[in-house]
């Protein structure tokens, strides 16, 4: 079956430091990977969409300078939260989709706590 693993599951970091999270697709080729953030008491905000052979598209209010993403192959993606502050707290979810299917498979999320 198709699975998506995210690592780490949770991180506590000091304000102003950075946190890198990884997303691994297993059982399918992740032709597109979407990164979301679920802030406390909020819905899922799309941060960026990365599609193989296309430029990474960031949503409004999110930038490459703040959330650099790497999608080097069809099974792996990573995103870093640079200079994390309180407003960056939340659950970061990786959603990966394979070619020809509409289903988005989510990882279990990487929870970021900023002190």
């Amino acid at each position: 079956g198709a699975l998506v693993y995210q690592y780490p599951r949770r991180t506590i970091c000091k304000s102003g430091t950075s946190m890198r999270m990884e997303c691994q697709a297993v059982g399918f080729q992740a032709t597109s990977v979407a990164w979301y953030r679920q802030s406390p008491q909020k819905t899922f905000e799309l941060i960026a969409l990365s599609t193989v052979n296309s430029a990474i598209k960031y949503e409004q209010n999110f930038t490459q300078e703040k959330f650099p993403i790497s999608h080097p192959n069809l099974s792996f993606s990573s995103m870093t939260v640079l200079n994390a502050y309180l407003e960056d707290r939340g659950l970061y979810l990786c959603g990966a989709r394979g070619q020809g299917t509409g289903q988005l498979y989510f990882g279990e999320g990487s929870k970021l706590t900023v002190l």
Partner: protein
Amino acid sequence: QQQVRQSPQSLTVWEGETAILNCSYEDSTFDYFPWYWQFPRESPALLIAIRPVSNKKEDGRFTIFFNKREKKLSLHITDSQPGDSATYFCATGTGGYKVVFGSGTRLLVSP
């Protein structure tokens, strides 16, 4: 501009009743409509999805009713069980790649 709207924000039903969760969207180019459910401290999981070629999709006790003309859809949960208590997110997607979520409906099924 909120692309996907859900109502109600929260809903409580008795065990055995039918829960109805509503969703509307803005962009008529959306062609994929998944519903996700999320239990506390867990990530969302796909529950059921529909494409505009159909106006109804059924999977056990869960049914999506889709009205393309009005850009509305609803999720009906028949014979609701306490284990159905979760937050339900309506989502829409374009071209099979970009998925946008609604704000969610928190469902509580009381025994």
